[in-house]
């Protein structure tokens, strides 16, 4: 699959955001848990 310019940027940002949201949940002394599903 090849994507370019605006579409590629949007997908990249989506991926970064979902990773960051998952990690952010686990920070601090009262963290939440994250379940991973392997595809």
């Amino acid at each position, binding site marked *: 699959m090849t994507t370019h310019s605006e579409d590629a940027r949007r997908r*990249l940002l989506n991926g970064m955001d979902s990773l960051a949201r998952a990690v*952010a949940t686990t*920070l601090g002394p*009262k963290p939440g848990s994250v379940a991973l599903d392997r595809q």
Partner: protein
Amino acid sequence: MTKDETAIVQGGGKSQAIRRQIEEIKDEISRAGADPDARQIALRRLANLCGGTATIRVGSAEKKLHAERALLAARTAVEGGVVPGGGIALFNTIAALNELDTDGEDEALGVTMVREALQAPLRTIVGNAGQDVEAVKAAIAGPSRPKRGLLGALFGTRPSKHLGYDVLTGQSVDVVRVGIIDPAQVVRSALENAASAAITILGQLHT
């Protein structure tokens, strides 16, 4: 007790006898010479007897992971020192950005981004505890800096340099005194890596 090991808790023994045993093991080490395995085992026995080691046995696999990380953090801290934890150290560096001269809008935008990023750890930690970031920020910046005259400045109690917030108790505290600290190296490399990743991503924008 496991199939390979037996732990004796609170062992006794006369100190003289222990010393004799230590000498014996030292002997063994010098005799072991080239054999690295025997040497290793003897060294470990020696360390156990000298009381220079602590063995921590941890209950569950999950707790073990925590313990290992804590140990790693402690080692890193010994190496490079500590800074106020819980996102406070990064948050406090924001003041330094205000003194920065920026050349044009683009640079100013960059500084704004870094300023936002430096608040993110504090915001996330407080948010995860279900508390309000703005209230916490006010508590950190707020009440402990009364105006003082010259004499007060010289002799008065100094406001805490590490004022922060303990999300577990919900109180503003001197984070360093209560032990909320991070290894300085960890905090620094977190920021460096974040900046490096951001530069890589932003570099893709106009190709």
